[in-house]
């Protein structure tokens, strides 16, 4: 399981675009899966992911249960230069939250 893992984020500017890659550490239980004792695992999944660049919102992703475990996202932002701060925040259905931040290289 990915319980010990950390959220990870990389952002790289290549002139015209900034490429952002995010890997969140989250089990993403759908509420339909069984554990080793044949018990239903209660639903626990990320619902809302938001991304900011220098405090300006860039992107919001809403997830249902069908997002894979340890959600991965990659996308590009217009412009940007090394030194920009990219922040990602997520909230899951139980109210747990996480923030991960990086500096564009």
């Amino acid at each position, binding site marked *: 399981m990915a319980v010990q893992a950390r959220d990870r984020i990389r952002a790289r500017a290549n002139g015209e675009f900034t490429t952002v890659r995010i890997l969140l550490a989250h089990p993403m239980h*759908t509420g339909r899966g069984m554990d080793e004792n044949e018990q239903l695992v209660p639903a626990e999944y990320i619902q809302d992911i938001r991304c900011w660049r220098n405090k300006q919102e860039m992107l919001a992703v809403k997830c249902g249960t069908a997002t894979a475990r340890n959600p991965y996202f*990659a996308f590009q932002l217009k412009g940007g230069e090394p030194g920009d701060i990219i922040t990602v925040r997520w909230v899951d259905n139980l109210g747990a939250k996480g923030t991960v931040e990086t500096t564009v290289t």
Partner: protein
Amino acid sequence: MKQGHNKQRRKVVKQVISAATLALVASSGLLIPQRLLAHWPREAFNAKTIEDALLALVGEAEQLNDDSIRFTVGSPPSYAVNGASVPVELETSLENIERVIILVEKNPQPLAMLIEPTEYMVMPFKSMIKIAEDSDVMAVVRANGQLYTTSRSVRIDVGGCA
């Protein structure tokens, strides 16, 4: 003198009442989750069919089949060994994208992902989704007030228990 005293007392009573109400609402746990999840379209995510999910999200709208969306599911395309983690990649030449919706037809809850980009985001967008069994995967892009859809069928070896 007496009037002033009364006014003061009224103010204090009022403040106590409003503070008590606020504390009650906050402690009942209604305030926080409501605010956090206000923008999560519960109805659409809990829908059991693609039609219901789309209806809840975008209402009745004309859908155009569009080739300007490049949509790849699985790796190699349209095949995935493990349904619990199927890569999807979406690229389009459309401008002014308001929403991108990814739906998996045979999943118990078809709506997989709802992306709300701003003007600063550029495709391609990549992510991983779960797919329960062999199914059609649909991408709906809302841009310039129109819906553009495209669909890919994908073969799954081991279901992702989505």
